[in-house]
């Protein structure tokens, strides 16, 4: 910025102007200030922030993939179950002496396969995404429980724990995975032909088809991306928990969708961004973190998060001038 800084007033008015244009960023900052104040500074402590980000990296990663599905006027409700499936595959293979590479490869492939299946059902089968992915959720969860007859798997090898517990330069590895996935998502969406096509297909599929865009392929790719993101989330979550669990991530799917929606991506498709989604995840993370610091009953916390989702979406709808 080559803005002159002779009067501090102009800086403030500039900041206010920026905030006025980005209501989500404002919510984020206001929450941060409130959190800091109410927690008497604990919120801002590096340990707390680091902890918070590590805890929400899995959801953050899922939300990046979810953004693609929602931008295309769809939704992926199978992510949470895919996390559990990948978790079980990972733990089962790892503890049966397959080392670490194969479990990771198979886990990622399983995530991609789930996404591919959902995508095919949505595009070829013309099943609404809500139903298709809900069915996929049931199937994936079913397979996850089938592997060990619903018993959790413990005793993962040390190398596998790196993703959830290791650090590089003091930063948790899952945070770095999240950051990279997010950057990749931003790159895909804003810099590539594919990203342009996502917005056009999401905005008006018929028009996109008649403009020579293969809408089915674009959607298929989005569901695969969402599945792979869920698999990556499954890896970091399993590693952090140090176990493979068929019943993990039961509520994570809701949080992934909530991140995207709070992040301003329209459920009607065609509008939204990854950066919004990241802010969305951070808002949810901060809310939870703050309430934990304040020792609020976790059951009440869920309700409050729900209220926040409603509030932001209502605000978005108002702004978009929905009839």
């Amino acid at each position, binding site marked *: 910025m080559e803005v002159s800084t002779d009067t501090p007033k102009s800086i403030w008015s500039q900041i206010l102007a920026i905030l006025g244009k980005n209501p989500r960023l404002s919510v984020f900052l206001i929450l941060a200030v409130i959190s800091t104040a109410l927690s008497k500074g604990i919120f801002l402590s590096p340990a707390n922030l680091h902890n918070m980000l590590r805890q929400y990296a899995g959801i953050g990663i899922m939300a990046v993939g979810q953004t693609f599905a929602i931008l295309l006027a769809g939704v992926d409700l199978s992510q949470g179950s895919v996390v559990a499936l990948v978790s079980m595959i990972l733990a089962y293979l790892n503890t049966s002496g397959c080392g670490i590479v194969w479990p990771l490869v198979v886990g990622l492939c399983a995530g991609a396969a789930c996404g591919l299946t959902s995508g095919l059902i949505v595009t070829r089968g013309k099943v609404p995404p809500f139903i298709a992915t809900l069915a996929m959720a049931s199937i994936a969860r079913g397979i996850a429980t089938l592997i060990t007859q619903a018993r959790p798997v413990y005793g993962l090898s040390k190398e596998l724990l790196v993703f959830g517990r290791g650090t590089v330069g003091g930063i948790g590895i899952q945070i770095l995975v999240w950051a990279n996935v997010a950057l990749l998502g931003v790159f895909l969406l804003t810099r590539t*032909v594919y990203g*342009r096509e996502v*917005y056009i297909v999401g*905005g008006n599929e*018929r*028009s996109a088809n*008649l403009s020579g865009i293969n809408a089915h392929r674009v959607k298929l790719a989005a569901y695969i991306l969402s599945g792979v993101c869920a698999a990556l989330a499954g890896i970091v979550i399993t590693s952090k928990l140090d176990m493979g669990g068929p019943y993990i991530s039961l509520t994570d799917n809701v949080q992934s969708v909530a991140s995207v929606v709070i992040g301003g991506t329209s459920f009607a498709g*065609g*509008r939204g961004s990854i950066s919004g989604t990241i802010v969305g995840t951070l808002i949810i993370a901060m809310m939870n973190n703050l309430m934990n610091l304040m020792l609020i009953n976790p059951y009440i916390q869920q309700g409050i998060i729900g209220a926040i989702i409603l509030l932001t979406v209502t605000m978005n709808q108002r702004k978009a001038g929905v009839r």
Partner: protein
Amino acid sequence: MADDNPVLKMERITKEFPGVKALENVDLELRSGEVHCLIGENGAGKSTLIKIMTGALPKTGGRILSNGKPVEISGPQDGKALGIRAIYQELDLLPTLSVAENIFVESRPTTRAGLIDWPEMNRRAQELLGRFDVRIDARAKVRQLTVAEQQIVAIVKALSQDSRVLIMDEPSAVLTGGELERLFGIIRQLKQQGAAIVYITHRLVEAFEIGDRVTVLRDGKYVATAEMKDVSMEQLIKWMVGRKLEEQFYKEKVRIGPTVLEVKGLTVNGKLKDIDLQLGEGEILGIAGLVGAGRTELLKTLFGAYRPDAGSVTIHGKPYHITSPRGAIRHGLGLVPEDRKNEGVVLCRSIEENISVGVLVRRVFKFIVHFPKLFARVAQLANYVGVKCHSLQQGVGTLSGGNQQKTVLAKWLASESQILLLDEPTRGIDVGSKLEFYKLIAAMVRERKSVILVSSELPELMALSDRILVMSNGQIRKEFMADEATQEDVLKHAIPQELRQSLAVS
């Protein structure tokens, strides 16, 4: 009811939409006990006028008198209170409910306990249906009925209520001969009871059969009102289409080069039959026909939206296999679709993005988009077609129809289309933008592109085209050089065989 005062009188009605004047000083007078036909071409303003009458749309100017007293119709409730009922082309029935429930949706008969009196409702519905002499079960769900039966239910529904003015918007479109006769019987019955009936139709034969008076609209303006017995078919057609051809259109004389597109025996079952046509370089080929003649289907088939069942197409002498819109675009085709908002543009995205689709589809960029290069090209094209906007980042949804259409055209210039398929490109666009659009078409053929133009506005079609093909029932019936044909000739061939015979009789 005073006899000298018309039931409903609309005076100098004006309706403006952003950028378009849909109605300008239109008058309509309805007398008790008459069938008043309302005719005009597509876009003449018939539907808009009806919607103002029923309160579905607010008027911009003019006044409405009921029995000589001024009234305000500001919502559907007001229209209903005045006894104005309409049966629209798009039926407003609830498909999951029964026939009887639909008929009595506004006033269900109730028992003394305040519950719905089902036997009574079904009985009364069946009785009303009986007047039509049709076998429809009042307890059947509406979605199980054929379109014609649904139409009858809609009519019965309107009849079940006390109506002084009954509007029928092209009721014959889906009715068979026998059903139409019964409808006419009912209409005559209603007439005797003193109702005023507004009958909208494209089929002039029907107007002569059932109408007492007729009002003609053209381009949103009032043309004439006459006693049906005093006018001839020729006079009506002239009123409907006859506008002066000066200054409204723009065409340059361009040398027509060798054939670029040749179609032989193109058939899509149930849509197109045995289409042959050639298109020369720099030529504008007009396609005339009534709604449903297969014109849109022809363009969409060439563009790969429908799979042909038979026939061959060559472009520049090389065979072109119709597969998908993507394939068509690669072969240099571009389609400006009839349904601009749903098929032409992406309303929620910017002008820039909409146009850039044309560049991306050419695979200029393998994976990563070079935005400065892309947007420079887009800006150049937007400027060329003259999109009026504050900035190219503006959403297409905020533009007027004319500017949206220019955006679509710019997209196809970006994809370097050589053959443009234009489907009703000027529908819903104001006069000024139309002229600009004609100039763009002229500029394209000057640059040796070729155009196939579908338009329901005959004067436009005749002024712009070099050659005209007339279609009906999915087939090409006649070919004219544009300067040799008259509108009456073209219209005559556009009307399907069966109807033409009944025309000759009347």
